[in-house]
């Protein structure tokens, strides 16, 4: 009997968030390896998630949208991560944030998620610029952005709230961006 490696062929799909995803989302954010990089407490406070979700769907107001990510070729895996965006400026630029569950990291899912949303925003939705903020020591996320074609523009000092619970603790973050050609 011979063993042959079956090449992993991810078929990433971003599913617009709906209330039935709440349990899955809470589960994702309960993983410290995910929440450590996010401004949520560990475990996340209900109110923090409510606050984030409160802006979902209010496109006209906050320009905030959020998707759960799944791999159609691995339906048994459930959601493998999530990605969101918020329109800023004069609604011509979008700020992205995302995470991939630790069990599914190193498969290129993060890059694929960011690339997919980047294409949608710039090619289909008419955005001029997609940007993301990342902690200088979040090497995995930096790799994702660079593989997805984002470029580092600078280090923004005291620009990001480390944890919502302590808004005075501000951290430095890299600004990464990609623009429509």
């Amino acid at each position, binding site marked *: 009997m011979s063993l042959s490696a079956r090449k992993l062929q991810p078929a990433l799909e971003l599913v617009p968030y709906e209330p039935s995803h709440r349990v899955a989302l809470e589960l994702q954010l309960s993983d410290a390896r995910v929440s450590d990089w996010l401004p949520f407490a560990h475990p996340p406070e209900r109110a923090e998630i409510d606050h984030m979700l409160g802006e979902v769907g209010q496109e006209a107001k906050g320009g905030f949208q959020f998707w759960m990510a799944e791999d159609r070729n691995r339906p048994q895996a459930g959601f493998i991560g999530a990605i969101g965006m918020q329109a800023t*400026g*004069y609604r*011509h*630029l979008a700020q992205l944030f995302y995470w991939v569950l630790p069990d599914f990291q190193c498969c290129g899912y993060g890059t694929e998620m960011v690339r997919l949303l980047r294409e949608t925003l710039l090619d289909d939705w008419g955005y*001029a*610029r997609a*940007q993301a903020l990342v902690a200088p020591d979040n090497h995995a996320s930096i790799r994702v952005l660079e593989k997805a074609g984002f*470029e580092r*523009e*600078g*280090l*923004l*000092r*005291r*620009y*990001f*709230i480390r944890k919502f619970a302590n*808004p*005075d603790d*501000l951290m430095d973050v890299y*600004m990464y*961006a990609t*623009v*429509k050609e």
Partner: protein
Amino acid sequence: MTVAAATSIDLAPQANIQLKLLEEASLARFIELVRHPAINPHLPFAPDFPESQAREMMSVSANPQSGCYAWMMVAQQDLREVGVITAMPVFHAGCLQLGYWVDAACQGRGYATLAVRMACALAFEHLGMARVQAQVVPENTASARVLQKAGFEREGRLKASHRLNDALYDTDLYAKVAA
């Protein structure tokens, strides 16, 4: 000084300008400075900037809860309103973004630099801000000089970050952080 009482900033009594929160008596001059043909092309406001928009900025600025401010720069010498400086929170409550412009006839006298310094003092010492920032198009070297003189550091160039009249421009992001 409380935030609500910040109708006039006199942080440096020896300074040759004062910042005065936008109010009814200054509204016409404010509109004139926004519509000024030499200034308006650089501002994110229409050439025929409507009075209603000026009134809205005034009322937002008068509400300390908004976190937004619009001040007139008043020359101490002759009480002439020589320019405007605005501030609004960006991304989080601890970060204030500045915008400023000076009457073309009154440029080159250091008014903008002084106004930026005063706004920073207010932001850091009275509003508890952690960071004050401003974005300038690279061609606007006069504006960049204002920021450098006021102790700002250039953090990077943000591509297509500024939209003006349906065109996109890169901007240099300058910031100053609390000591």
